[in-house]
């Protein structure tokens, strides 16, 4: 039953979509290897291994995971300064960290990543993928011929679907551009110029790095960033596939699955990878729905690269650039630019901050961190505004009654103190706190301050409802499973 439902319920669609995805994975895996600064075979083996393992171990059927741009960008400096072997070691550590994330259910932390941060992440990723293509189009490589070829490639990719949707247009682009380059004998860069291509099945190999603390110090920061970026992109993609197919996924299982896949990839000489937004959309669009589509995508990929290795080397870089430009355009969330005008300023700032930090650091983990911090700050300042202090003087003018309604915590503590009039000389004040919430120590200490100030003026202070107000201080305070707690929180 399980097998049928999760693997063989959509045979035709899965096989077709797996073919389309495998064809699309080849140029991407090569291009991302080039971004990372390693041989194309590192990305191709990684893509095969990650796709196959996540098909079994992942938590989201029909999601495509492979070597990705987001991960490639994080590992650039590691490869440049320490070489491939350290990258493989970092890949293993990444997998280990991701399994730990999954085990401790850190996937649930995704709820702190707001929609604006996700949009910023996606946009930054698109910009970085696009920027990574620029070296191929500038300097000594940027000849008119290369520009012409790239433009032709883009035209084929976008216009060919109007002729027929039965053949993947990126494939047509590769075939046409390669044929032209060979026929006219163009002197332009090809994939073979970029490094070694796979000519055999991958073999098991252990990274050749010294097992010392020094190695760990070198690879740990990269592995942590890779693990975080991988989990973020994978869980975001899982949510997108969930929405598209109206089904649910197991996010923590996905974390563990990504971890196992990365360990597998590291052990056969592949780079770290994660889920791919663009490829997963292509998979669903082409009719893929079950785990079978992911598995076959990996298997087809391996078959294609091992048997076509001589031909893959002939593909002009211009064709890859055209495909990657399409991927970056397809990844960018264009609606978010239009939304800048209508969305609240704070969420636009979060989105733009995420993009800017990412583009400057080339590390999506920093971008997301800044985005999450900004959204938390904006939220705190918004909630801090929900505070009202009203007061009433008794008929004889000797006593004032204050009533505090709303949230008192670190951002609103100043405002809380300012709400009291210490200049007024009265014999007694009564502070009714039964409709207020004291969330932290700052709130309590500001209340102490208020009481102390009144006493120094010679005023007697009476507090009402402090117990209810400070119930929120207790860390375990939660309202989800107590129906009357909501009443208390909102209405008392």
């Amino acid at each position, binding site marked *: *039953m399980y097998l049928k439902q999760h693997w063989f*319920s*959509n045979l*035709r*669609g899965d096989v*077709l*979509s797996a073919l*389309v*995805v495998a*064809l*699309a994975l080849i140029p991407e895996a090569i291009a991302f290897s080039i971004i990372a600064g390693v041989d194309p075979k590192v990305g191709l083996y990684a893509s095969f291994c990650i796709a196959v393992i996540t098909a079994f171990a992942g938590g989201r059927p029909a999601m495509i995971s492979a070597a990705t741009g987001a991960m490639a960008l994080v590992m650039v400096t590691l490869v440049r300064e320490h070489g491939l072997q350290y990258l493989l070691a970092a890949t293993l550590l990444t997998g280990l960290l991701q399994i730990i994330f999954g085990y401790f259910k850190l996937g649930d932390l995704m709820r702190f990543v707001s929609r604006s941060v996700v949009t910023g992440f996606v946009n930054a990723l698109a910009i970085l993928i696009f920027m990574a293509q620029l070296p191929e189009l500038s300097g000594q490589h940027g000849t008119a011929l290369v520009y012409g070829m790239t433009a032709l490639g883009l035209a084929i*990719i*976008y216009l*060919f*679907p109007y002729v027929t*949707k*039965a*053949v*993947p*247009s*990126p*494939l047509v682009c590769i075939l046409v551009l390669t044929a032209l380059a060979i026929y006219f004998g163009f002197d332009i860069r090809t994939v073979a110029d970029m490094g070694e291509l796979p000519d055999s099945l991958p073999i098991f190999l252990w990274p050749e790095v010294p097992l010392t603390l020094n190695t760990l110090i070198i690879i740990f920061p990269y592995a942590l960033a890779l693990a975080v970026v991988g989990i973020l992109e994978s869980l975001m993609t899982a949510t*997108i596939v969930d*929405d*598209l*197919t*109206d089904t649910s996924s197991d996010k923590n299982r996905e974390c563990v699955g990504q971890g196992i896949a990365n360990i597998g990839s590291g052990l056969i000489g592949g780079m770290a990878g994660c889920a791919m937004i*663009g490829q997963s*959309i*292509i998979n*669903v*669009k*082409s*009719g893929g*729905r079950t785990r079978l589509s992911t598995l076959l995508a990996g298997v087809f990929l391996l078959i294609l690269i091992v048997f076509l290795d001589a031909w893959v080397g002939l593909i002009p870089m211009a064709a890859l650039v055209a495909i990657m430009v*399409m*991927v970056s*355009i*397809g*990844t960018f969330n*264009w*609606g978010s630019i239009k939304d800048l005008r209508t969305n609240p300023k704070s969420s636009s700032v979060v989105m733009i901050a995420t993009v800017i930090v990412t583009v400057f650091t080339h590390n999506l983990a920093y971008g997301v961190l800044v985005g999450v911090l900004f959204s938390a700050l904006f939220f705190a300042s918004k909630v801090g505004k929900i505070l009202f202090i009203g007061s009433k003087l008794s008929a004889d003018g000797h006593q004032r009654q204050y009533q505090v309604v709303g949230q008192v915590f670190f951002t609103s503590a100043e405002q809380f103190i300012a709400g009291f009039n210490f200049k007024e000389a009265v014999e007694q004040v009564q502070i009714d706190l039964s409709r207020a919430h004291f969330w932290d120590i700052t709130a309590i200490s500001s209340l102490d301050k208020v009481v102390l100030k009144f006493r120094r003026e010679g005023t007697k202070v009476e507090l009402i409802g402090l117990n209810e107000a400070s119930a929120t201080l207790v860390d375990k305070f939660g309202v989800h499973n107590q129906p009357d707690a909501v009443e208390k929180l909102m209405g008392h």
Partner: protein
Amino acid sequence: MTKKVLACIDASPYAEAVCDYAVWAAKKLDVAMSVVHILDKAQHTHTPDLSGSIGLGSQELLLQQLAELDEKHSRLALARGRSILDAAKSRAEQAGVKAVDERLRHGQLVETLTELEDETRLLVLGKRGFSSAEAHGHMGLHVERVIRSLHKPILLTQQSYTEPKRIMLAYDGSATALKGLEMLAASPLGRGLPVHLVMAGADVEAARCQMDTAAQILRTAGFDTKTAIVAGEPETVLHQYQQEHVIDLMVMGAYGHSRIRQFIVGSTTTAMICKAKCSLLILR
């Protein structure tokens, strides 16, 4: 919560029989009845776009297309489910059950029935569902999973309804069987019907002794009880006995063993269900 007889209705030829058996059980047990239809969301294949290119707003467009497709299918399924339930409800009301309610739920069969377990007194289910109605001699895709996941009595029906006149209790002296026997003795469901207590195996003293104890329990509860010990493979001889004595309701315990054992030696329960030519009351 008052417990009900739950009748699982789908578009298969079993629907009418399921409804009639549920009516019979609801009257016997004097409880309300609920007709349930579950809309298990199928995956609808759309014409795939194999162009493999993603452009501006691809994701939004795809989401919109898929949502529209699902909406169309789901509306049809919803309307069909409602009409199936309406027909079953009026059939049950005509047959004289006063309280009948309709339950139309989204979800998977097993999960949904587990959710409804608390309000279930007896579940009535066709031996095969819509997807495998023609596969005679087999049981439906979901039946085994339902039996294993639910801890309520389940009445598995044949394709046509015959009012139960004679009950047969397959008894092997095990703890599961004894529990089933006690449940039957205590339940108003079989009251007034003659019970054949049948054991498959060698006619030895120990077996006879077990049978006597069992028969005594039934007789004390007021059942007209006959006993028989027949030699041979349980699946074969029990069905022979059933056909010879025109039994219309067979009662048995189910899946006393683990899945691992079933994988190795096969399950008597599954074999019994597949071969049975009458309705089965499965006691857990």
